[in-house]
């Protein structure tokens, strides 16, 4: 049953499977962050939202025995966190990045506080679709076991990409993100739009958290998130605020994250921790390569504080 049966082919296969598995939370968090940032705010607190969403989903799934109710609860919790961030940032001189850091701490703290009793019990998992059933090689089957949330995330990125260009709501978010003054001239209230955009972003991050605790790795622990919420922020910049780009970047990050375990499965244990750091190193390199001191980033929302 070990990977050596199909030799080194196991490595790319494991990376592919890992990319699909690991990328799903990235997809949701980065799509959520893309909506928020397109409206001109940045929410670093999605890391805390992710952890709190993971805990909520797991707790509700344990109590109701339904992973879908857990998912819904996580989205609702994420919505609350997002709305709170959106509300508090409308006050003058309140820094959205700093509030994000505070919410990161607060969300994780609350999750650990209420999550203590749920570390032991087992929750039902979200279902996966066995696309690899045609093959009788276990590695292929494992790699192609695709969770429904991945498919929903893929569809969502397509819908958002379309909606940003072609719908009234998409246009409103973009206008508010590019210029508060222009939005006000159009009779829009930028604070309301940003409140809603941050709320939706939070809800999506909550879903990302639910995936972590209810599918992969599939349990609730205090170490469940390893900075996915933050990496998603960098990922959105790399993806140039384009939902399709977010999806592609999330897959890339997932693949980088799967590199370490994939190599370990074929017996490469040297430098395990460095491979574990691959997604962070990749993010950093991408950020360095795509930033420039002389011109602002193409496609960047004009009101976004980090690109000003």
């Amino acid at each position, binding site marked *: 049953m070990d990977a050596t049966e199909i030799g080194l082919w196991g490595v790319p296969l494991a990376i592919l499977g890992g990319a699909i598995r690991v990328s799903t939370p990235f997809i949701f968090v980065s799509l959520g962050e893309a909506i928020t940032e397109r409206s001109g705010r940045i929410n*670093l607190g999605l890391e805390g939202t992710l952890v709190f969403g993971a805990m909520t989903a797991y707790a509700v799934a344990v109590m109701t025995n339904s992973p879908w109710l857990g998912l819904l609860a996580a989205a609702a919790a994420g919505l609350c966190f997002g709305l709170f961030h959106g509300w*508090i940032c409308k*006050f*003058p*001189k*309140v*820094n959205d*990045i*700093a*509030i994000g*850091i*505070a*919410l990161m*701490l*607060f*969300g*994780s*703290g*609350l*999750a*650990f*506080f209420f999550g*203590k009793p749920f570390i032991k019990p087992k929750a039902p998992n979200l279902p996966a679709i066995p696309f690899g059933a045609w093959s009788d090689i276990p590695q292929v089957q494992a790699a192609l076991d695709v969770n429904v949330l991945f498919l929903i995330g893929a569809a969502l990125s397509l819908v958002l990409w379309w909606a940003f260009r072609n719908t009234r709501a998409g246009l409103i978010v973009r206008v508010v993100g590019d210029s508060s003054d222009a939005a006000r001239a159009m009779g829009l209230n930028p604070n309301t739009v940003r409140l809603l955009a941050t709320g939706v972003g939070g809800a999506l991050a909550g879903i990302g958290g639910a995936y972590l605790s209810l599918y992969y790795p599939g349990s609730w622990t205090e170490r469940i998130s*390893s*900075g996915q919420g*933050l*990496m998603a*922020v*960098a990922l959105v*910049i790399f993806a140039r605020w384009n939902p399709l780009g977010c999806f592609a970047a999330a897959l890339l990050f997932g693949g980088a994250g799967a590199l370490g375990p994939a190599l370990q499965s074929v017996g490469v244990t040297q*430098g*395990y*921790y*460095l491979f*574990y*750091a691959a997604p*962070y*190193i990749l*993010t*950093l390199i991408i*950020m*360095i390569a795509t*930033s*420039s*001191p002389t011109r602002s980033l193409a496609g960047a929302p004009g009101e976004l504080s*980090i690109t000003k």
Partner: protein
Amino acid sequence: MTDTVSSAEAPAMLGARGYPAALEWIARRAEAFVIPLAALVVGMVLFSLFIALVGKSPVQLYETMWRGGFGSWFSIQNSLSRGAPLLLAALCVALPARLGLVVIGGEGAIVLGGVAAAATGVALSGAPSSIVILAMGVAGMAAGGIWIGAVGALRHYRAVNETISSLLMAYIAIALMNQLVEGPLRDPASLNKPSTQPLADIYRIGNIPGMEVHWGLAVGVVACVLSWVLIEKTRWGFAARIAGGNVRAAQVQGLAVGPLIVGFTTLAGGFAGLAGMLEVAAVQGSANASLAAGYGYTGILVAFLARHNPLAIIPVAILLGGIDASGGLIQRRMDLPDATVLVLQGMLFIVILFSETLYGRFKAFNPDLWQRAS
């Protein structure tokens, strides 16, 4: 004669609006004390509500917290010990903040500073202890300084967002530490908890005489005072404050903003690296995974609570050290999870940031708006 003197002195004692000058002086400075303290109180009241909601007594909680943090000489020493690394970790946030940068990856500098110090201490074993301890401090500061200095350089020369890059570098630093501690630097005798070789006792840093608190506290206080002098009393600090207010204006004035940013972030990282060195030399005795204990993250909170004023960092770090120290007692006495302290920290953090919106809104703090005294 005496009459004319007193009438000449009287206007000097009164401000432009006829109020005593001392009152105006106090009013102008009171804002910086009253608003953070009020925010602290509001945060604690909100936390009381939270504790009441989960069915525990807030009064008992604060009493326990006081006992665990400051109620006895033993607990005060415990709080001071926990506050010591927070002083340096907070400087890692506060110094770049004066330049307008939000650096939140101090944890990485602490971890690497600790590893560099431990490796230096082991490599130089046999040399006189004063030289080795000094070399460990320099190595720790250099490792941390390079790490955060790189964040500053990337920010200025490549426009890479420093908040995100510093955090990514913190994750990379922790992975690097794990790799080094489990690989080339591992002491074969450390089985369950991979560590570097333990430092010989003569290379360990002891306690301040008469206290159960190691010298790191004194080092941290000195670093805070020096940072305050640097920011408030030197031309570099002045230039940094200008650049923090408006980068373009600073550049137009001919200030070398790049070297300023790299210099400040390097110093900031150096302080965090020193915290790691002290953690190794005074507490752990070797570098291991315990270095990533979260001081870097609590330091962010300390710096924001202190509004990036290095002198204010000293009491705030000790206060948070006390809250931290009382966590164990709260857990045992009140049957609350250890994350209770995290929830409190998060609430305080949010309320403090929210209070930023209140500055300049109260007439009482601004004598220019006072009605003329009759």
